[in-house]
């Protein structure tokens, strides 16, 4: 008997069936879909009295009690390991690339810039220069974080959420960034509670270092995602 080949509609139905069982990652779906479709086709060819729905049910049963989860987990674990390797390389590449000079220069230029800004904003003596500096820092960090989130999410939506959901511990760049954001808030609180904790120069240096680190984290993270997209294709890009 001729081998039955599933129609496009039947393949779409299988894809929906897989997605309904909690499998969202495009690569995992593609891998399961082919295997699943082969099995359904075989069952429909061997047992012509079986309709599509019965064959789907039987094919799903053959995946065992855990269904597609074992297959998906194997894929996710493998991907996470690869992501971790890519992260390490991306961070090292960022340090060794000319980009690091630009990042450090921004930090270096930011130092006197902060001081000037702080002086300008304290013209009416509403706040001390140090308080101004911290407020500027918090605003910049906040703006930076929002921009970073929007850029990464818009450009690499699926992959960004996938890596975030599956291996948050691997997103160390984001973690480091978070630590710096938190430390700047702590400094701000500390400054209000214990005035004169830092002098204006110390504060400007702290601000510059924080901004430099933020830039580095963003750069390494963006590089990582680019590498992953290059490795796994553009399927993860938000359409």
């Amino acid at each position, binding site marked *: 008997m001729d081998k039955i080949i*599933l129609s496009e509609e039947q393949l779409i139905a299988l894809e929906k069936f897989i997605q309904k069982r909690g499998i969202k990652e495009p690569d995992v779906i593609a*891998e399961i879909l*082919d*295997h699943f*479709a*082969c*099995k359904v086709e075989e069952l429909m060819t061997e047992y012509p009295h079986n309709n599509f729905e019965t064959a789907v049910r039987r094919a799903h049963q053959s995946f*065992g009690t855990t269904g597609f989860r074992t297959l998906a987990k194997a894929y996710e674990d*493998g991907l996470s*390991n690869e992501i971790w390797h890519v992260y390490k390389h991306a961070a090292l590449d960022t340090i060794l690339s000319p980009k690091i000079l630009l990042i450090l220069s921004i930090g270096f230029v930011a130092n006197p810039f902060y001081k000037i800004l702080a002086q300008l904003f304290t013209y009416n003596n509403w706040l001390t220069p140090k308080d101004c500096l911290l407020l500027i820092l918090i605003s910049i960090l906040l703006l930076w974080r929002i921009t970073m989130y929007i850029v990464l999410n818009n450009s690499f939506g699926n992959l960004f959420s996938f890596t975030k959901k599956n291996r948050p511990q691997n997103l160390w760049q984001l973690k480091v960034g978070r630590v710096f954001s938190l430390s700047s808030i702590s400094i701000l609180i500390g400054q209000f509670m214990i005035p004169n904790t830092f002098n204006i120069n110390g504060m400007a240096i702290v601000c510059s270092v924080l901004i430099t680190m933020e830039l580095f984290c963003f750069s390494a993270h963006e590089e990582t995602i680019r590498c992953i997209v290059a490795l796994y294709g553009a399927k993860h890009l938000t359409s």
Partner: protein
Amino acid sequence: MDGTKIIKGSLSLVVLQLLQHNKRMYGYEITKAVKEGSKGKTKITESALYPTLRKLLEEGLLETESEIVDGRERKYYLLTRKGVKESDNKLIAMQEAIISLQRLLKYKLGHG
């Protein structure tokens, strides 16, 4: 005890050897080949096969290429150069292990 457990314990070798003899295969094809190659005596489940394939990919013994077949994406697995060497090494190690086991099973203590 059936031979399935023994074969499952050597699944990496089975996959490597199948790929060495067939150039490239996709997941479903591998499960079919194991079933047909063992005349239906051994079946490997997806939950055993895919983690093995992933592990071999991570070790750099396999690589993949994708193609659109019958309207869907199909991932083919192929041996890398390192994979070919490893496949040969594992086969030799397995053959030696079988010979040792055969000797061991027939071993009688010498008296005197």
